[in-house]
């Protein structure tokens, strides 16, 4: 599958609450095994099959505004 979208998570800002993981319909976010400097298992994107659809549910639920949502869109052909 081609990559349609992806997210960036500010792992240092993340408090590992898991609301994004809970909200993700594609189940492509998980807790990292690593800790950030605050000591939290931060959320990370794990999307080997490119399932992320850029719905921004994670962004909407993140209480710490850690997530940037990208969509890869086809460039509109110029007339």
């Amino acid at each position, binding site marked *: 599958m081609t990559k349609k979208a992806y997210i960036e998570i500010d792992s240092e800002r993340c408090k590992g*609450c898991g609301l994004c993981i809970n909200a993700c319909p594609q189940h492509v976010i998980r807790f990292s095994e690593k800790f950030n400097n605050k000591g939290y298992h931060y959320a990370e994107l794990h999307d080997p099959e490119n399932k992320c659809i850029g719905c*921004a549910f994670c962004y909407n639920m993140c*209480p*710490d505004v850690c997530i940037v949502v990208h969509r890869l869109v086809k460039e509109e052909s110029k007339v």
Partner: protein
Amino acid sequence: MDSTIDKIIAKMPKSLSGKEFTYCPGCHHGIVHRLIAEVIDELGIAGKTLMVAPVGCSVFAYEFFDLDGTVAPHGRAPAVATGMKRAMPDRIVFTYQGDGDLASIGTAEIVHAANRGENITTIFINNAVYGMTGGQMAPTTLLGQKTTTTPYGRSAKANGYPIRMSEMLATLEGSAYVERVMVTTPQNVIKAKRAIKKAFEVQIKNLGFSMVEVLSTCPTNWGLTPIEAMKWLEEKMTKQYPLGIYVDRTKEAE
């Protein structure tokens, strides 16, 4: 040849300062902050908006927004906002208050600001507990709910009943728009944003007092994980505090 571009569709809104929130993991304050900032950005009013933060967990809220702002004494945000708005009627003034602030110590101020039809917007966070001071009973604590000052659960006989502010304020003729929302799912978050936007628009149109009550979790003081807390909110809190628009006088006012 097909070429794709990388488009950012969601990121931190401009009206947030970027300072890290002081809230506990999973606390809904952060979601509501972001929604307010998005609304301010979309309405293009950041340069003329004044914020009044409360005393409570969100006492630092004025730091989290890239806006002119202050902190009111506990409960007095509506009075402070009144003073600002009366001094500068063309500015947008909003208060951000918790349930202890708005529904307990500041009941007189919120009731009279609403009753005057004070042209301000209030975002009211109801999480049924005092967060900042360590989980004591709030006026909105549910019957039977255990807190550090209701160790046997809140009893109506000893502590009275959970107070419904939206319903109460909706009875006042100065209230132009009052809605209760929650932010437990992405769909709810979008609805909540719509409510907040409407509340600010009411102010921009000089229609009177507007308030959005947001039912919120307090995982720390409830002793639940963030996910469990959201379930508890949806199951228990919404029974006492049904969602919905409690008053919308915008049509008659317009």
